[in-house]
């Protein structure tokens, strides 16, 4: 994976998860949560803009953040499958968010040590937001896991359903290690520790590792991705060259 692909992957993760959360604003269980969802989506779209702009700069072919977001085909998206899994109900949304946040914050922390000052700069800026996201989603995992019998079962099922998409977060490759620097090895144990601690507080079981799904980082996505892109890209694709 090239540096371009790596930075794209960082941008695409934020973009796709931000896009998914965008669909939820106004439909949450309580007004405070609608506000939080919009806020987190906004952070993620903001992060996506930074990474995609940097990716365009690295590529040097004159592609803007919008060109990369709206005019790329599915096979060229580099996000992990986890972020494209459907919103489902609130437990599904929060399980997805927590499993992502616990990794995202750790990754950004490691990237703060990147030798590339542009990468370190973006990571430093976004890490603070990611920490808030993590505390928010972990809070809901705990409240739902350790809430009613119904919410406990829903949250356990959601974590179980999403577990096969967590392996891909840690797919190692040479480019990645070089990019991230010496702390790359710390991410997985930190993530495991966070997940174990939070699920324990939530009275939930950590699912057993089985066959892990992968492919997103190579452009092989799930059936959810195509419809998400159709909706996201329709207007720019329909008005080539237009400025908005």
């Amino acid at each position, binding site marked *: 994976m090239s540096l371009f692909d790596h930075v794209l992957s960082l941008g695409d993760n934020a*973009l796709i998860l931000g*896009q998914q959360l*965008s*669909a939820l*604003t*106004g*439909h*949450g*269980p*309580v*007004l*405070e*949560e*609608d*506000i939080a969802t*919009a*806020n987190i*989506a*906004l952070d993620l*779209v*903001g992060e*996506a*803009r930074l990474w*995609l702009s940097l990716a365009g700069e690295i590529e040097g072919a004159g592609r803007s*953040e*919008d060109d990369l*977001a*709206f005019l790329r085909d599915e096979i060229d998206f580099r996000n992990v499958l986890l972020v494209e899994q459907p919103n489902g*109900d*609130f437990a599904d949304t929060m399980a997805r968010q927590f499993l992502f946040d616990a990794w995202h914050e750790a990754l950004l922390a490691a990237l703060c040590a990147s030798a590339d000052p542009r990468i370190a700069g973006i990571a430093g800026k976004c890490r603070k937001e990611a920490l808030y996201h993590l505390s928010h989603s972990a809070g809901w995992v*705990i*409240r*739902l896991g*350790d*809430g*009613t019998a*119904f*919410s406990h079962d*829903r949250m356990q099922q959601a974590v179980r359903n999403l577990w096969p998409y967590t392996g891909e977060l840690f797919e190692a490759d040479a480019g990645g290690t070089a990019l991230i620097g010496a702390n790359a090895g710390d991410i997985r144990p930190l993530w495991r520790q966070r997940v174990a601690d939070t699920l324990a507080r939530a009275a939930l079981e950590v699912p057993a590792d089985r066959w892990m799904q992968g492919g997103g980082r190579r452009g092989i996505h799930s059936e959810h991705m195509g419809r998400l892109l159709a*909706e*996201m890209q*329709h*207007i*720019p694709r329909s*008005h080539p*060259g*237009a*400025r*908005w």
Partner: protein
Amino acid sequence: EGDERRFQDRIDAGIRVEPEDWMPESYRRTLVRQISQHAHSEVVGMLPEGNWITRAPSLLRKATLLAKVQDEGGHGLYLYAAAETLGVSRDDLIDALHAGKAKYSSIFNYPTLTWADIGAIGWLVDGAAIINQIPLCRCSYGPYGRAMVRVCKEESFHQRQGYDIMTRLAQGSEAQRRMAQDALNRWWWPAVMMFGPPDGESVHSAQSAAWRIKLHSNDDLRQRFIDQTVPQAELIGLTIPDADLRWNEERGHYDIGPIDWEEFYSVVRGDGPCNRERLAARKSAWDRGAWVRDAAAAHAAKHAGEQK
């Protein structure tokens, strides 16, 4: 009797009413109705704009729209909190909305059909809202007035963003220009009707004026909106969809054509294009969220000891 007079005297003297002060029951009821209707409007108003977040045509516009919808949720929060100072609970207010007993602004019963509608809502709907709301910053009830100060500051930012979207479209491709004009065509009259029925037919007005919770007449505010908006449309080359619109030199105001109040009342009655969808979306969100709220409450109860 004496309480009522003293209450009115204080209002006339420009002294604000605070939650702990004595107030007439009808003042309280009127304010609860007005503030909760305003709060509901913010929350229902997240839906038509939320409809376009996933399809915003650039990442910057997506981010800006997300921030705007987030602000609207925030306005809902302040306003529910202001209403709660009058001794009602947010849950009861929400139940009244879902039961169809409480109203929200009819403007949100129109659909958002293109990206230009997001521009038109910011420019026209937020523009009209600001004109309605700026006087309320000075209204007699303290918590409401203070909430409106925050709300107006953000609304004015939203209004500028909306006009910016329209400007960009109006200066864009032929398809974009058409999109902008179409949005103006569809939103103009509903925005003009946001100020409510003509002064002659408006109920509650005299008492509300005396209580300083309604500081200008519907028609005055409407005129202010028209006078402000028409030149903005001209500036970016869009045409207000009103063949009778013209500058009245004598009055120093624009004259407009007749307003189709039949349409207005049909939307208020529940027959607008999206009344059913909007309420159904809110109820569905609330009902689907019940188990989440229950779980949060159960969790809080279990751990109440620890947190003290």
